[in-house]
């Protein structure tokens, strides 16, 4: 089970002081937060990608490359990488490069982006969001797996004899999660490829995600990647803690009340009841998140949003201390209890390489030639991607 932090990188004035960080201060704060995530013993740092104020991370791999150099074990991910408005060729290049730079500590969470005006800035149209996500990913999937790609589609100029460089580290592409808040099409896509499914459930009631995740699990099984409980699920979360629960509520309330997205809307009490937001003591956070699997099944990755709505860096770092010292160690134990041995961990570069080697080894032992045809190779890599071969 992996625990981590995801940041959308918003620049928001601190509502208690009115002070807004500069772009430089916010960028440096994000980098400091990422390093802290490793220090406090968490596993993943994921960064959003945005191309409109008040969000600052337009170039995630630049920031993740820096973080890679400053950390040793931290897995670098995204929340999300825009599969609609980015050129899949550039995604293939950027993230393969990040794999090499970070020695494989990379995975990708793909998302469509829900800000209409961003699409035309990149020559696209939000009304084509789903077809873009489907076509772009089908190309990205091939660019990661085939050394020479001939391709044509609807949304991008054709490719003839194209090789994306560098090739993925050890010939194994970064694991891909598909993020979605409401579209069954994306759950279907994740299931089809045997990829992970990240449900950013921080805004909606859980019933909504129980349906989407249940659907993804069922389709994952139908596509032959493993049983439904072996599908790879990630969840978002949002917490604010102090030792004293009332102190946490008092301190967080002005940030909640003025937050982008939900500020000036539902009350903090309503929102904490309806969504995973938990404001209170570390024990309350533990109780809430230990119960997530009762609704969604045993899952692989839990990310928390901690650094938004104008919270000062000092406060965010204190929150990460609480998370790393008091919450996550207990959650690791709680979530390991009664977890079936057949439920896999989230794939990592090491596990994917091991699975690929196992396939080669099996093939050699059986005296069979390694598969040569493109489709057989793609099938092989699909099974490597989910680690299903080793289960």
């Amino acid at each position: 089970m992996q625990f981590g932090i995801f940041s959308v990188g918003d620049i928001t004035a601190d509502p208690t002081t009115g002070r807004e960080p500069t772009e430089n201060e916010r960028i440096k704060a994000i980098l400091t937060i990422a390093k802290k995530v490793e220090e406090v013993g968490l596993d993943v740092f994921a960064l959003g990608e945005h191309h409109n104020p008040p969000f600052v991370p337009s170039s995630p791999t630049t920031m993740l490359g820096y973080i890679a150099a400053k950390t040793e074990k931290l897995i670098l991910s995204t929340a999300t990488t825009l599969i609609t408005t980015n050129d899949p060729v550039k995604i293939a290049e950027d993230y393969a490069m990040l794999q090499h730079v970070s020695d494989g500590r990379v995975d990708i969470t793909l998302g469509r982006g829900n800000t209409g005006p961003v699409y035309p800035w990149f020559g696209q149209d939000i009304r084509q969001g789903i077809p873009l996500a489907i076509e772009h990913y089908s190309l990205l999937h091939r660019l990661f797996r085939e050394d020479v790609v001939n391709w044509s589609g609807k949304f991008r100029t054709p490719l003839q004899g194209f090789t994306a460089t560098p090739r993925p580290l050890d010939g194994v592409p970064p694991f891909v999660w598909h993020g979605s808040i409401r579209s069954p099409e994306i759950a279907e896509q994740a299931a089809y490829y045997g990829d992970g499914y990240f449900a950013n459930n921080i805004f909606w009631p859980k019933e909504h995600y129980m349906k989407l995740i249940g659907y993804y699990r069922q389709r994952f099984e139908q596509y032959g990647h493993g049983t439904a409980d072996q599908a790879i699920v990630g969840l978002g979360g949002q917490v604010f803690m102090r030792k004293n629960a009332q102190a946490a509520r008092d301190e967080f309330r002005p940030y909640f009340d003025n937050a982008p997205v939900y500020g000036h809307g539902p009350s903090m009490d309503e929102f904490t009841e309806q969504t995973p937001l938990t404001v209170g003591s570390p024990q309350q956070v533990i109780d809430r998140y230990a119960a997530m699997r009762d609704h969604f099944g045993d899952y692989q990755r839990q990310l928390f949003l901690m650094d938004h709505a104008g919270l000062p860096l000092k406060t965010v770092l204190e929150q990460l201390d609480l998370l790393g010292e008091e919450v996550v160690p207990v959650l690791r134990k709680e979530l390991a209890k009664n977890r079936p041995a057949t439920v896999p961990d989230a794939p990592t570069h090491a596990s994917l390489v091991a699975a690929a080697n196992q396939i080669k080894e099996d093939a050699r032992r059986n005296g069979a030639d390694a598969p040569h045809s493109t489709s057989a190779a793609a099938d092989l890599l699909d099974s490597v991607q989910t680690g299903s071969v080793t289960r």
Partner: protein
Amino acid sequence: MTERSIAVISAGLSKPSTTRMLADRLGDAVASHLAEGGDEVTVEVIELRDLAHDITNNLLTGFPSVALEKALQTVHTADGVVAVTPIFAASYNGLFKSFFDIMEPDSLTAMPVLTAATGGTARHSLAIDYAMRPLFAYLHANVASTGVFASTDDWGSDEDGVKPLPERIGRAAGEFAALVATSTRSKELRDPWALPAGFRPMGPSGLE
């Protein structure tokens, strides 16, 4: 015997409101028309006042509360909708419009709709036809030709002696019930969690 469900939406702001009174009268009249035809009818009233905060929150956050989600589902899955609003500043009130603003765009496609409104004087009565009817036309609903407008006079001694309110309610309910009785819409609803026809999760533009 066919089971029919009718969603009655009332956008009255006071409690009690004449809008809710008219809504209840229409609901009863529709139910008895359908019952005469042999249908088993359930009428569910959605009082938007009770959901006003949730509706505003949905406008701001993009997601409905559990209670609002339930109301939206009641409307979407109904066999017919009776929509009643007070007329404010020459149109439906903001609460009424906001409720339809947060609905999924295809929620009311082919839905039989009975429009009705309340106001101080009969001089507002055309708002049903120049404001409410275009809204439901945009939503691809199937609006009954007769709408019902009730002014303050209609509830008292100065009511229209030639076409009193009960008669207008009866006529509108009859027309609407006929649309409901022949509608097959609720049997053909697409599961919102189902994939669109022809969807493929791979290949160029998902159509390969």
